């Protein structure tokens, strides 16, 4: 059975000006440990798709099944399914009043893990994600790239099975972005998480994903699913090979035709 299953997930937003179809029924299945990138033009509903999978937006139709549990079966998102997932938001979304270590430890704190234990786990994770020297700092003292590392650490601290990433590196400069992509690849491999990465960068999608799902604009509809054949771990140099660039080009054409 697939680890993550989206069956006919659709979303329609009702407003006074009329209903807007953000997402046409989408089917998608991910195996355990698989990383899928979702790409598409702005407003194609890729973030909506992610929010439906994260338990933040109830789909108008369809089923989201995480490790066999129906996320939207009850009045509230299924607790056990929610517990197994973590999300990295677009703008880090750290709590400015907490230090880095307390931000990272927040998921543990809400579960009632004692302070000493959660700080230990947080410190360990910060060490692994390269922010070990900044645990006592507040988010606004950090660069945007560092903040995303904190956000990534917070997502990983409670050992999720599914990691959802909503354009996590969109506001980073190219060099930091490359470094973060390598970091993310390593983290995903280490943790064995299943991953869904929403991005508007084709090369980021091809570099990180096992499969790239292309959505068309309004309503979001899957127009193409492309498997990425490159072996892991992938080095940055891969991006300069003709095979890589050809694939990126091909995906751009697919989306261009759909639009």
């Amino acid at each position, binding site marked *: 059975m697939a680890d993550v299953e989206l069956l006919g997930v659709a979303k329609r937003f009702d407003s006074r000006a009329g209903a807007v179809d953000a997402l046409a029924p989408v089917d998608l299945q991910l195996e355990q440990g698989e990383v899928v990138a979702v790409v598409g033009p702005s407003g194609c509903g890729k973030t909506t798709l992610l929010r439906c999978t*994260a*338990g*933040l937006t109830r789909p108008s139709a369809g089923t989201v099944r995480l490790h066999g549990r129906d996320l939207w079966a009850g009045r509230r*998102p299924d*607790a056990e399914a*929610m*517990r197994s*997932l*973590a*999300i990295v*938001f677009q*703008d880090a*979304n750290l*709590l*400015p*009043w907490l230090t880095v270590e307390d931000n990272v430890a*927040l*998921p543990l*704190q*809400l579960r009632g893990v004692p302070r000493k234990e959660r700080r230990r786990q947080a410190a360990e994770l910060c060490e692994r994600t390269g922010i070990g020297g900044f645990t006592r700092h*507040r988010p*606004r003292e950090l660069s945007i790239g560092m903040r995303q590392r904190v956000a990534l650490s917070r997502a990983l601290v409670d050992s999720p099975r599914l990691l959802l990433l909503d354009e996590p590196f969109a506001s980073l400069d190219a060099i930091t972005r490359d470094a973060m992509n390598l970091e993310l690849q390593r983290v995903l491999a280490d943790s064995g998480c299943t991953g869904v990465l929403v991005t508007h960068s084709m090369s980021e999608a091809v570099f990180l994903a096992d499969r790239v799902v292309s959505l068309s604009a309004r309503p979001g509809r899957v127009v193409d699913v492309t498997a990425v054949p490159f072996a892991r771990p992938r080095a940055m140099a891969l991006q300069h090979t003709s095979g890589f660039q050809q694939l990126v080009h091909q995906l751009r054409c697919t989306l261009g035709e759909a639009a």
Partner: protein
Amino acid sequence: MRDRVLSLVIGLVVLVVFVGGWKLYVELSDVSRFVLPPPEDVATATWDLAGDGDTWEHLRVTLWEIVAGFAVASAFGVVTGIAIGEIRVVERALSPFLIALQVLPKVAVIPLLILWLGFGPSAKIVIAAIFAFFPVTAGTRAGIRSVERNHRDLATTLQASRWQQLRHIDLPSSLPSILTGMEVGIVLATVGAIVAEYLAGAEGLGYLATFYLNQLQVDALFGVIVVMSALGLLLYGAVLGLRRLLVPWHESSELDHPSA
């Protein structure tokens, strides 16, 4: 550093111009010294007041009324603000009453409260609390309402209970706004307590002011006003200090912030 020296110099210049203008007006116009004493008389009177033990006793009474009233207002204001900020039904049910109470000229109910609670400090505490309650409530409500949507999403994905969300997300995020309400609240509590003292009772700085007025000791009356201002400034400064202490992470705590 240069900015701080400059602002200090400008502040001093404004003070000198103010006192100089005052002195000049007293000397050049034929205003009676009973109506407007010259600054040096006021300085002497203030000095004499400061040396008088009675003044300190009155100050102590007023300080207690303000602080107690402000504390009560802060507690009720924060709780009410949270309730109407978090729960729509509560807001809809309470807002007509809150608006009615807020537009009611609160000075008008002072005689009523004195009638009910007597001439002692308890009436003044309640009056100070009523004055300070609304800004604290409004600040808290605004804070709760403007919690970032992103932070709420985070609470949802982490499956925070309602209580956890309040404690870990909504309250800390509202704190800057709550403190803004409290800054207005402490000033209004001071006004409320002193106005109530003007109207009734035999202690407190407000009473002292009316006492000197009746004695036609206008320079001493001015002295009492100086003491009141000093007290108000001190209390306001204390609440501002609270901001540095409680929300060091917020932009409003930065040293070069205009309100700091």
